[in-house]
């Protein structure tokens, strides 16, 4: 990634963080923490890596993105609007009645959403299914599945891990938003996951680690994953929940808390206030 492109994406991420805080403050509902930790991952995928077209959401050879941690929907919607899937004006209807933007992604309401998600632990299996279907159809598309690290406590994830290895689904790239925090506390407190990389490696996956807030490192990791054939890859992206707003960082209490006026003013000051 060129220095210029990196700076462009970083500027975009800062704008998305500002827009996210504006949005969640305005509607007084939604999940700030997980959207902020996934900001660089989702933005790098949509704005830099994936073959997608907002004007042609169903084009046959497109890449797919499955937001398995569906509660980060606001960050997905910001990216979809930026790509032109729907007017940015619609963003302010998030989570409101009659809106196309549901609290968790919905295929039939939001153009560009590839799978309805929210109930955790299903997205990886579905992503494998998409990728296997693409292989069967002879397409060169990639499917990217973003999971939370709390999410991998679901048993279904490890069922999917076995299938990914058995069927050699090298066109499905899993990305783990490894922010170390879940709704009720840290992973260490709630359910320690031990050596996550060793677990995936033991299940037969090619494991790549990267800084999940460095757009260039994320792109490099995806290139490495694409280079691995005959085996599925997972990118363990080290992130910080609530990244970019210091008083939210690493705090499980900001998983799904409404932003009051005082915290909003503080957050905007930290982000530089860009509107």
């Amino acid at each position, binding site marked *: 990634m060129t220095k210029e492109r990196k700076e462009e994406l970083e500027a975009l991420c800062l704008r998305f963080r500002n827009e996210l805080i504006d949005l969640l403050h305005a509607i007084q509902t939604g999940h700030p923490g997980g959207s902020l930790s996934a900001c660089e991952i989702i933005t790098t995928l949509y704005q830099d890596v994936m073959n997608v077209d907002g004007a042609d959401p169903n084009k046959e050879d497109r890449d797919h993105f499955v937001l398995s941690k569906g509660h980060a929907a606001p960050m997905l919607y910001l990216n979809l609007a930026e790509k032109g899937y729907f007017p940015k004006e619609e963003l302010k209807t998030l989570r409101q009645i009659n809106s196309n933007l549901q609290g968790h992604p919905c295929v039939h309401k939001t153009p560009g959403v590839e799978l309805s998600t929210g109930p955790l632990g*299903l997205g990886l*299996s579905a992503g494998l*299914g*998409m990728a*296997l279907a693409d292989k*069967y159809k002879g397409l060169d598309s990639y499917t990217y599945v973003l999971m939370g690290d709390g999410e991998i406590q679901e048993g*279904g994830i490890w*069922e999917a891990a*076995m*299938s990914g290895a058995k069927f050699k689904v090298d066109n499905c790239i899993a990305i783990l938003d490894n922010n170390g925090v879940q709704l009720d506390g840290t992973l260490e407190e709630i359910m320690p996951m031990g050596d996550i990389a060793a677990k995936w490696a033991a299940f037969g996956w090619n494991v790549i680690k990267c800084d999940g807030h460095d757009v260039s490192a994320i792109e490099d990791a995806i290139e490495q994953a694409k280079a691995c054939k005959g085996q599925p890859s997972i990118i363990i992206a080290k992130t910080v929940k609530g990244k970019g707003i210091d008083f939210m960082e690493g705090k499980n209490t900001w998983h799904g808390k409404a932003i009051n006026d005082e915290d909003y003013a503080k957050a905007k000051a930290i982000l530089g206030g860009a509107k």
Partner: protein
Amino acid sequence: MAEKIAIRDAFGEALLELGKKNDKVVALEADVGGSTKSAVFGKAFPERYYNVGISELNMVAMSAGMAREGLIPFVNTFAVFLATRSGDPIQSLIAYDKLNVKLCGTYTGLSDSYDGASHQAITDMSYVRAIPNMTVITAADATETKKAVEAVAEYEGPVYLRLSRAAVPVVYGDDMKFEIGKGIKVKEGKDITIITTGTVLSKAIEAAEKLEAEGIHATVVDMHTVKPIDKDLIVECAKETGAIVTVEEHSLQGGLYSAVAEVLAAECPTKVKGIGATDFAESGDYEQLLEKYGYGADNIAAVCKAVLADK
């Protein structure tokens, strides 16, 4: 007595034939392919047969991704596991996203007889019938199984197709017309209507013959589709006969009896009595279990007479 054919064998053949005609049809299996007979498809089309091992939830979620990409996945395992262990992706992916997945739950009712109550599916209809967008079908014989497989493949959307392990009498000729959502009047009579879903149809026909010998004329309806249910046919039968008995190898809560009673309560209040499960069953010979738990022709006839006495 008519020739008996196992529903699962008919299904295996039907899936194979479908695979020959349509290369978008793929099959998923959770390590019981020799039992569900999906292995017949797998042998012919190994490149589109996915045995995921013992991981039912993963299997259904994988099929969701395949359907999003335009394939027509047939998902196979025992109904007792499909409806419960995969309940989350069935609801949150297959039904919510209106995906073109055909969930094939086999060994319904008491048909996995020797394995016992842990393997007998007597609640699966209740789970899936409550889910929006879901179509629920139970096959009554080998002919209907083949026709149903063709019909659900043609239909665009989620289907839960209930199959059986049992060898049961072939009721229908090859010229039978199968339409999703349209019940079939197998026999017409003016005194009482017996509505069934699944392989108990042959028992109901036998019961109707016994009643006929006693001068009681029963209508027998094969309500293969419990959702969306054929309201018009239920109301028509209620008006014609004024009394209804339902028979299903399934809990009386949430299946055929519930669906029929819901229609009658709203459209045409009529006395309706249900024959179905009120408790877990047990291991044993299938025919002996059917007799013990009330699905034998004699009991069906007796229930009909009791309802008529109270008419």
